[in-house]
């Protein structure tokens, strides 16, 4: 046993060395929001008041998050954040489930828009109002549509952190070649006029589509949330009355089907982001979270625009936020709230969103000097931030009904790919959503909502 421990300690040292080297390698790419982060030399034994465990992002986003935590440690010494990675959103939720049962849950966790509510229903999330106020987090400084999404019965359970919205992306080179203006379409009707000029066909095979739809595996129900609002419809009311059979809701899905079937200028892509980067489609709607990667990988000039309107404008919010779990001690919960304040604020929050493509969730962050500079370098990101105040939290049917996202998404696939009758499909989907909503309604009554 002794031998194992000492070897582990030794390797921990090596691991840290590599981590520090990696950090040193990536800092030059960071914008000038702060001076280059210094790795904290003081380990856990240092003068920190509270050490919290945080389950955050994996992948390249995780690396940016690591850098932010390092900056946080350099900026203060009261709170020490032990950031751990438990995989993707789904894997993190899976592990959190097991960890809650085994009482090994973390203090703070990153939960996506469809996940946090499940944990809220299971009564394992802490109300954050007092904690947030104690840490100097002012709710009114947040973008209202983002802040209100995590509120239940007047209490805040989920604070926006890595938030995104759908955004209209277009290939400027292709738009120019087709003689179109360098802007997004104001309305879907306008895009319908433009589309034939963008479409390139080789016989019956579409070589370049005017528009690419995403599939259910890539959260098409999130993208379509905006479209159904634009047409004046909605998935559901806040109290789970499914509205898919309302005339406007049907009209919106019929339009989606027509783009592929009747108008023939759109395709369903396996990976719409890839299709856009490779020039297989002239335009698409994707998350703002993909913007950084698209700008890097695209060999053409990328344009971004507000989502097109129909009857009105409509755009949902998405992404992930932070929640504190009920097993956490008061002291640690306070420390976690301080970290949340930093991670959404002018320093940490600006660093985070500028390096990932997520939205600045606080108005003061979006108005900071570093952001003004950032918008000059990447004007495309300004569109996303400008669009943000016009967004709304998503309908209950997609985010609060278990599996709601996939139920709606698979229905959309039947409509677009399967070319089925819209009303028939929406009737099936409504029945399914109604059934799955039952336990949620029961839980909410039990919770007194």
């Amino acid at each position, binding site marked *: 046993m002794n031998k194992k421990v000492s070897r582990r300690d030794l390797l921990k040292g090596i691991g840290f060395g590599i981590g520090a080297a990696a950090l040193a390698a990536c800092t030059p790419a960071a914008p000038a929001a702060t001076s280059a982060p210094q790795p904290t030399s003081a380990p856990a034994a240092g003068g920190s008041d509270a050490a919290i465990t945080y389950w955050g992002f994996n992948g390249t986003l995780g690396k940016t998050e690591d850098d932010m935590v390092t900056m946080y440690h350099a900026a203060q010494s009261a709170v020490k954040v032990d950031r751990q990675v438990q995989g993707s959103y789904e894997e993190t939720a899976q592990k959190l489930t097991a960890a809650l049962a085994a009482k090994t849950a973390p203090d703070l966790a990153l939960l996506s828009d469809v996940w946090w509510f499940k944990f809220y229903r299971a009564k394992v999330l802490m109300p954050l109002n007092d904690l947030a106020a104690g840490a100097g987090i002012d709710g009114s400084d947040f973008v209202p549509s983002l802040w209100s999404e995590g509120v239940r019965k007047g209490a805040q359970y989920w604070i926006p952190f890595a938030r995104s919205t759908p955004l209209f992306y277009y290939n400027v080179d292709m738009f120019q070649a087709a003689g179109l203006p360098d802007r997004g379409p104001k309305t879907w009707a306008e895009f319908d006029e433009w589309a034939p000029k963008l479409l390139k066909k080789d016989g019956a095979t579409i070589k370049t589509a005017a528009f690419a739809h995403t599939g259910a595996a890539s959260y098409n129900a999130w993208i379509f949330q905006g479209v159904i609002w634009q047409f004046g419809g909605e998935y559901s009311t806040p109290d789970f009355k499914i509205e898919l059979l309302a005339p406007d809701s049907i009209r919106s899905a019929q339009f989606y089907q027509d783009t592929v079937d009747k108008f023939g200028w759109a395709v369903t892509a396996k990976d719409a982001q890839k299709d856009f980067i490779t020039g297989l489609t002239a335009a698409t709607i994707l998350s703002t979270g993909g913007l950084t990667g698209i700008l890097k990988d695209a060999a053409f000039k990328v344009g971004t625009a507000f989502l097109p309107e129909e009857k009105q404008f409509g755009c949902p919010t998405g992404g992930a936020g932070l929640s504190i779990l009920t097993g956490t001690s008061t002291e640690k919960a306070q420390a976690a709230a301080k970290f949340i304040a930093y991670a959404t604020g002018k320093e940490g929050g600006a660093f985070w969103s500028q390096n990932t493509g997520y939205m600045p969730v606080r108005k003061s962050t979006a108005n900071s000097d570093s952001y003004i500079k950032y918008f000059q370098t990447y004007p495309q990101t300004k569109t996303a931030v400008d669009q943000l105040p016009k967004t709304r939290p998503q309908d209950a049917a997609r985010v609060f009904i*278990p599996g709601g996202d996939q139920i709606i998404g*698979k229905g959309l696939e039947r409509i677009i790919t399967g070319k089925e009758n819209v009303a028939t499909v929406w009737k099936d989907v409504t029945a399914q959503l109604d059934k799955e909503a039952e336990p949620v309604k029961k839980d909410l009554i039990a919770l007194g909502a």
Partner: protein
Amino acid sequence: MQLTKHDFSASIAGRIRRDWREWLIFLAFAGPNVALFAIFTYAPMVNNLILSFNDWNMISSDKAWVGLQNYIDVFTDSQFSRIFLNTIVFTAASVTLVLALGLGGGLLLNQKLRGRNAARSILFSPHILSGAAIAIVWIYIFDPRFGLIYAVLHPLGIQSPNWLTDPNWSMPAIVIVYVWKYLGYATVIYIAGLQAIPGDLYEAARVDGAGAWMRFRHVTLPGLSPVMFFLVLTSILSSFQSFDIINIMTKGGPINSTNTLIYHLYELGFINFSIGRAGVIGMILFVLMFVVTLLQLRYLDRQVNYA
């Protein structure tokens, strides 16, 4: 349950006194393996059976006994028959192809050919590749406008199907990836089996004037039958539970065309948090596999012994 009638090892052991020492040896040899399974496999499965009669979201402390309600819910779900059928189609297609092509590969690479080690390594390598990398390669290959398959079909004047976005083609696409990934595995097992066939049998058959087909039919196939039995059974069991490829390539879509029982179990349990209904799917899968195994044991294991 008498599985074997002509177990030749019984004749060996028959000469030895049936004493308790033999039993102790058995326990010492097989006991730890079974004990670990009891803790980490059988116990969770029993737990799963109990959960299938409960309504629970896995986190909250209140668990409600609902009797057969979960079973009713699962069986009356409009998508269930499709998911069940998908599972059967996927398993039948992928197992048949892996076993048939794997046999070809095994026979081929068991010959004394130059460079066969390299060839074996290449055939086996997809088995080691991680899921994410496989997805990116195959999504590219299947691209109907620019993918590799398009590049092959286009000059022949054939239009490439929309493999991954057309519900009629997504299942074949998944089967192709599965066969690609597991072919090398079957090949390696077949090679091990072929090595067990004594070379003198072939000599004898040759002397008797048996042609290639006769030698294959009367020497190779019977000699391979124990290993073939292993392969048939384990391939069926593992393809019933094949989750990775579906999860990374299609997530059961489009329109549930590649949704199988194992993926549905994951959806219900870990996406919808409906542990009771996931438990039902777990039981259905288990019973299905159990029946298949019993049938195989009845018919195939017996043949093995006559060989």
